[in-house]
């Protein structure tokens, strides 16, 4: 390993000022940001910085001269990893605010460089327009059945969105050519519409299946019979089997989302809101079978 004196190119007797001047000279030559294409500049500049760090500190320099520490024995701040401006992708991108191609203005006419810049600018101008992002909340039933929705655009105008049946919360629809215009001939970008689905008063959805809780009278539950049930495509008749309890799950095949899933109907027995004299009279006289103990499992 080279000694810090060798790295900075100064004599062992060099004054602090000589050391500083040597460092300054080498920094001007080797600073990575002043050598954007030279990969070795970073390592060289690091060595120089470490050497200067050691020799510019009188205490450290004395220790080094006395052999108490070696050239790399105390890598400090100067040696720490550092990201140079040249390493940022921005430095190399056209969109960078700092980017300048003013250096080519004198290459006028049909020169290769100005041609290249013209093409570059043209390519950028004629690129497809940017995609536009929208959010659209659709009702539960529109999400299940599909339908046409219209988004009013902030700049006036409207965007018609054809919602496919069975769309799910969070899905994004891409409307080709409905985004922002190109600055040149590239055509419009796409509109990206992210879908949110509003909850429904009594339907819920799990995958392609739809669930609904159906209130039934005590009579319908006990004796069974046909009742009307709402589905996503209108009401249908459902035959309730005799002695169906609260929580019983009945299936309406093919009545799920977009014909793919099923609808599940969960029964819930509801007593009359107002006391019903006839029902009360009947129940007062009614002695249930001894096996009827709904709390049997609780072992009371």
């Amino acid at each position: 390993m080279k000694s810090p004196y060798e790295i900075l190119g100064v004599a062992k007797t060099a004054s602090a000022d000589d050391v500083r001047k040597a460092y300054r000279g080498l920094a001007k030559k080797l600073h990575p940001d002043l050598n954007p294409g030279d990969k070795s500049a970073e390592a060289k500049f690091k060595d120089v910085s470490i050497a200067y760090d050691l020799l510019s500190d009188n205490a450290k320099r004395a220790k080094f001269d006395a052999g108490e520490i070696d050239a790399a024995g105390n890598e400090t701040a100067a040696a720490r990893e550092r990201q140079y401006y040249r390493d940022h992708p921005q430095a190399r991108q056209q969109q960078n605010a700092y980017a300048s191609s003013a250096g080519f203005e004198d290459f006028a006419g049909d020169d290769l460089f100005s041609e290249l810049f013209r093409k570059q600018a043209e390519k950028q101008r004629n690129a497809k327009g940017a995609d536009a992002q929208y959010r659209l909340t659709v009702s539960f039933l529109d999400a299940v059945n599909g339908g046409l929705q219209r988004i009013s655009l902030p700049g006036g105008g409207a965007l018609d969105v054809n919602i496919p049946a069975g769309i799910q919360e969070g899905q994004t629809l891409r409307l080709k050519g409905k985004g922002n215009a190109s600055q040149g001939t590239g055509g419009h970008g796409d509109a990206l519409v992210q879908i949110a689905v509003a909850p429904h008063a009594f339907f819920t959805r799990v995958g392609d299946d739809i669930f609904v809780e159906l209130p039934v009278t005590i009579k319908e539950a006990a004796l069974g019979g046909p009742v009307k049930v709402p589905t996503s495509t209108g009401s249908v008749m459902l035959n309730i089997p005799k002695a169906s309890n609260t929580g019983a799950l009945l299936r309406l095949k093919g009545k799920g989302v977009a014909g793919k899933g099923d609808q599940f109907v969960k029964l819930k027995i509801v007593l009359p809101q107002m006391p019903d004299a006839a029902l009360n009279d009947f129940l007062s006289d009614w002695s249930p079978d001894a096996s009827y103990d709904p709390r049997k499992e609780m072992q009371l």
Partner: protein
Amino acid sequence: MIIAKSEFLLRTKLDPQTLEVWVHEEWLLPQDGEFTEADLSRVQLINDLQNVMGVNDEGVGVVLHLLDQLHGVRRAMANLMDEVRRREPH
């Protein structure tokens, strides 16, 4: 990636007046008053130019201007090389 002005001051240890001057001189170009990681490195570069290399204020502007042009040239050269490579028969 986006750094607010207050955090930027903290991380660069610049005082607000200095930052204001640097932005005014267009050594730094915050977008909507916000900075980036690249701006942090640019501050370090400006510090190196001033403190390590003894470049004065006028010189810093000249160096940054030339450096930005150099990056523009390097980018153009990279694009040119890509184009040449693309057209090369394989």
